[in-house]
């Protein structure tokens, strides 16, 4: 297992790989979108503009499938941002990784600051009686392979959904918790929080598992020549599958966000 490069500045911990990868993801998404919409044309769109329009139309169709498109129009940008950000994040961890290995606790510094997690790991190894510890730190990985990132995204959706529900749909929002009987209140509450939890954890679990398997295959490749040869097809298959999983998870995250929004802003009176 790779450690995360965590340093402390004034007692506040910072995960450097997450910060780096978030910036990279945001830059990639923004530059892609900006580049695609550089020469906007009504009558003669370029290839990238067509691609971006396809993305927007795709999200628009998904929103139209979950709610009235008139109500759903403000969420198109949110959906596009979510799907692009998550997809790019999922893909970033696949092609390569940047890993630093450390033999001594004193070497593990960055910008002159000790990497707290590595120091802790060395201490733990020493306590366990390991005389020759080797700790590896991953700097380049998918930001979505970190639980704090995915749970934050889920929480953004969660808070937005409930804010919208209270603001736009006050009466049926609160009534919803007591349906079909007031006895169901705790179940309804649990349902809300479990949906938040599964929303974030599903994405984290899929991408994290993908990266774990990649590092396992890499370890297999390091064992001997047979392992190296065997790891090549395994790696190809798993990389391909990870691309598929990354795309599916981005799509699922986006569509679930839209479903939650539609549940809360739908007034059930018109049916």
């Amino acid at each position, binding site marked *: 297992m790779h450690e*995360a490069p*965590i340093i402390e500045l004034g007692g*506040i*911990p*910072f*995960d450097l790989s*997450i*910060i780096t990868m*978030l*910036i990279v*993801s*945001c830059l990639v*998404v*923004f530059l892609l*979108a*900006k580049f*695609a*919409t550089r020469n*906007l*044309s*009504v*009558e003669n*769109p370029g290839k990238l*503009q067509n691609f*971006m*329009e396809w993305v*927007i*139309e795709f999200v628009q169709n998904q929103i139209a499938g979950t709610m009235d498109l008139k109500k759903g129009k403000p969420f*198109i*940008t*949110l959906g*596009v*941002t979510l799907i*692009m*950000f998550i997809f790019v994040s999922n893909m970033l961890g696949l092609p390569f990784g940047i890993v630093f290995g450390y033999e001594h606790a004193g070497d593990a510094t960055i910008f002159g600051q000790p990497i707290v*997690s590595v120091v802790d790991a060395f201490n733990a190894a020493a306590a366990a009686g390991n005389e020759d510890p080797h700790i590896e730190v991953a700097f380049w990985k998918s*930001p979505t392979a*970190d*639980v*704090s*990132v995915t*749970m*934050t*995204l889920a*929480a*953004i959706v969660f808070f937005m959904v409930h804010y919208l529900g209270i603001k736009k749909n006050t009466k049926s929002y609160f009534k919803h918790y007591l349906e079909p009987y007031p006895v169901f209140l705790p179940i309804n509450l649990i349902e809300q929080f479990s949906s938040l939890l599964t929303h974030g954890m599903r994405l984290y679990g899929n991408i994290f598992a993908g990266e774990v398997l990649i590092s396992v295959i890499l370890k297999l490749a390091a064992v001997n020549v047979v392992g190296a040869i065997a790891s090549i097809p395994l790696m190809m298959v798993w990389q391909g599958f990870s691309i598929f999983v990354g795309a599916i998870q981005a799509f699922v995250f986006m569509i679930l966000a839209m479903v939650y929004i539609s549940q809360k802003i739908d007034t059930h009176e018109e049916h």
Partner: protein
Amino acid sequence: MHFVWTSTVITLIAFVVLYLLLNRYAIGPLMSVMEKRREMVLSQLNEASATREEAAAYVEQQKEALQQARKDAYDIIEQSRQTSSKQADQLIAQAKDESTRLKDEALRDIESEKNKAMAALRGEVGRVSVQIASKLIEKEIDEKSNEGLVDQYLKDVGTKS
């Protein structure tokens, strides 16, 4: 599984900033362009249907005009046919008139020539008869004084003949 709380804050900031930037610089303009294109397609469709209706109306008008022209042409031909036959009749009538007129004139000329000839003949016959008579009676008769007598005589002859 490390849960670093600053990652949460940074993710939140990064995502919100990305959302705002995309909304402001990429997706907002792109969606307005898409909307513009939708409107353009809609207006062009409307225009096309309007043009088609116009064209159909024009075709109808053309058909009517063609029908009208055909009718006019038929009328003109009919009229000219009538005119020509009338003219022919007129010409024939004129020719007939002319011929009768010429015939009448000729008859009149003949008549007057005959009368003239008769008058001349009458004079000649009178003069010759006087000569014959004077020769016969060998008597100097004043032609002039007897002319009235001869005329009287000849008139009597003329009425009797």
